């Protein structure tokens, strides 16, 4: 789609995309456990401590012992200089496969995708995928200017104030290009808050009206307070293994997944991302499309990025997200259940765990364990990731389609 063919042959889309998404399907290996730690505004323990709590819950939900784990994968931007191997040592695990991601908030989806492949290839039998952080707002502000080289060298010296200004630029561009209104984007934050009010683990559960959203304190115009996530502490865990080992009715199959980094090329504040490159193949591989999904867990660092993901993932045409949102209810019982636990916007952002909160919530829903926020009859869902913000925007996009295994 974005690549210019170098020969006279001009395939409809790059061959590599097909190869990647076709490999995603596994009838045998999928998600057999999940878990979340408590979320806290300030850390009471280390990052590994939160991960350990989430990991214990994931093993318990799978009905497996710690000794079953022989692979570990972690998505975290705060763990280095520690990594997946040192984490295995902390947890007393001897593993045959260890991996750490590099795609920020898009990383957890990629890690689970990789874990399925690793098991299919015989590198491990059960992979524990972890993501999270031990941080608070002050910690986050202290490191945001060093997030990567281009931010440190070419944005932080301007006093860019973190990601808010960059997404303010993107949101304003979307508004002036397509006529998108804050009243429309605000529906995402408001409906997610309604979901969070049914999730006792969410840190932000106070009722929010559209008026509250519109009049919230100005942060980075047009970004206001309820467009922003609250950095916090916590972790998420997913256990990947043989579907047949999951408790009856609790196995979740991966029908398709994809990642794309650095698309589009050469734009600093794009209104699109890598999802548009792999969208068609993703649905083709899954065998069903956006109209067949029971919910969406999209990466919600800002409502404008949820909006762009929904466009790029084919829920509406590019630029038409405003009227689309105005006509839909994104609550767990609405016609487009979105971030059914409240998402990062209401639960808080646990660093790299922000890329996994959608996965654990999706698995929770597909197992029928959503409690007061259960999507009735949830069978199929989509999780998308976004991350590694660099010079102006996030470089990484990912998505995964999950289905309750029969």
């Amino acid at each position, binding site marked *: 789609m974005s690549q210019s063919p170098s020969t006279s042959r001009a395939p409809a889309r790059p061959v590599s995309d097909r190869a990647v998404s076709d490999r995603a399907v596994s009838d045998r290996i999928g998600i057999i456990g999940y878990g979340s730690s408590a979320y806290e505004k300030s850390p009471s323990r280390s990052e590994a401590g939160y991960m350990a709590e989430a990991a214990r819950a994931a093993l318990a939900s799978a009905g497996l012992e710690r000794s079953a784990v022989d692979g570990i994968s972690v998505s975290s931007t705060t763990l280095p200089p520690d990594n997946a191997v040192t984490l295995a040592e902390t947890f007393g695990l001897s593993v045959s496969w260890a991996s750490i991601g590099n795609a920020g908030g898009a990383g957890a989806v990629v890690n689970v995708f990789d874990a399925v492949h690793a098991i299919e290839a015989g590198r491990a039998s059960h992979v524990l995928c972890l993501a999270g952080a031990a941080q608070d707002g002050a910690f986050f*502000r202290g490191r945001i*200017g060093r997030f990567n080289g*281009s931010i*440190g*060298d*070419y*944005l*932080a*010296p*301007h*006093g*860019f*104030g*973190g990601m*808010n*200004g*960059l*997404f*303010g*630029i*993107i949101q*304003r*561009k979307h508004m*002036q290009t397509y006529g998108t209104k804050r009243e429309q984007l605000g529906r995402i934050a408001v409906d997610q808050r309604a979901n969070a009010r049914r999730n006792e683990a969410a840190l932000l559960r106070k009722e929010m009206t559209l008026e509250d959203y519109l009049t919230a*304190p*100005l*942060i*980075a*115009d*047009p*970004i206001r307070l309820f467009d922003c996530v609250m950095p916090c502490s916590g972790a998420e865990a997913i256990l990947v293994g043989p579907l047949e080992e999951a408790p009856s009715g609790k196995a979740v199959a991966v029908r398709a997944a994809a990642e794309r980094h650095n698309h589009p*090329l*050469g*734009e*600093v*504040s794009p209104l699109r991302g890598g999802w548009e490159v792999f969208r068609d193949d993703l649905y083709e591989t899954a065998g069903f499309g956006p109209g067949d999904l029971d919910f969406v867990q999209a990466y919600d660092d800002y409502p404008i990025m949820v909006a762009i993901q929904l466009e790029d993932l084919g829920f509406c045409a590019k630029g038409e997200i405003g009227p689309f949102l105005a006509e839909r209810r994104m609550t767990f019982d609405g016609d487009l259940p979105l971030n059914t636990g409240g998402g990062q916007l209401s639960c808080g952002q646990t660093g790299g765990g922000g890329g996994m909160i959608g996965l654990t919530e999706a698995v929770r829903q597909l197992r029928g364990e959503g409690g007061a926020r259960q999507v009735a009859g949830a069978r199929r869902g989509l999780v998308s990731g976004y991350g590694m913000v660099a*010079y*102006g925007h996030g470089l990484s996009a990912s998505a995964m389609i999950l289905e309750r295994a029969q």
Partner: protein
Amino acid sequence: MTNEVSAAYPEARVTPDNAPMLKRWREAGELVLQHCEGCGKAVFYPRPVCPHCWSDRLVWRPASGKGTVVSFSVIHRGLPAPFDAEAPIGLAEIALEEGISMIARVLVADGEELESGAGVALVGKADAARFPLPTFRIAR
């Protein structure tokens, strides 16, 4: 032209890729951009290789220092010191005359407002030394 500067800004890190740009800015208040001798395109941020064609024949050429605001944000909160004392701060995507975009701070004087489509120019030599990176003002 804006609020008084209360403390030193963070210094931009000098790297093998960006040293000529930072030096020219600091000493002359001018913007120089990498241009690729392989494909002719301008490049920002500075890199060791042309991202368009992978040529390493990148040469520095003076830029006009003029451009147009594509989109912008006005940042009121969450700024680190010393920028917090100067809030709000304008940050814009600027389409440079050389055909590439840059994100940079745009100073806004009393009575002025940032607007998409507005012309911007570098702050000029007298003010340049105060700012770690090429910084713009609304063109008058």
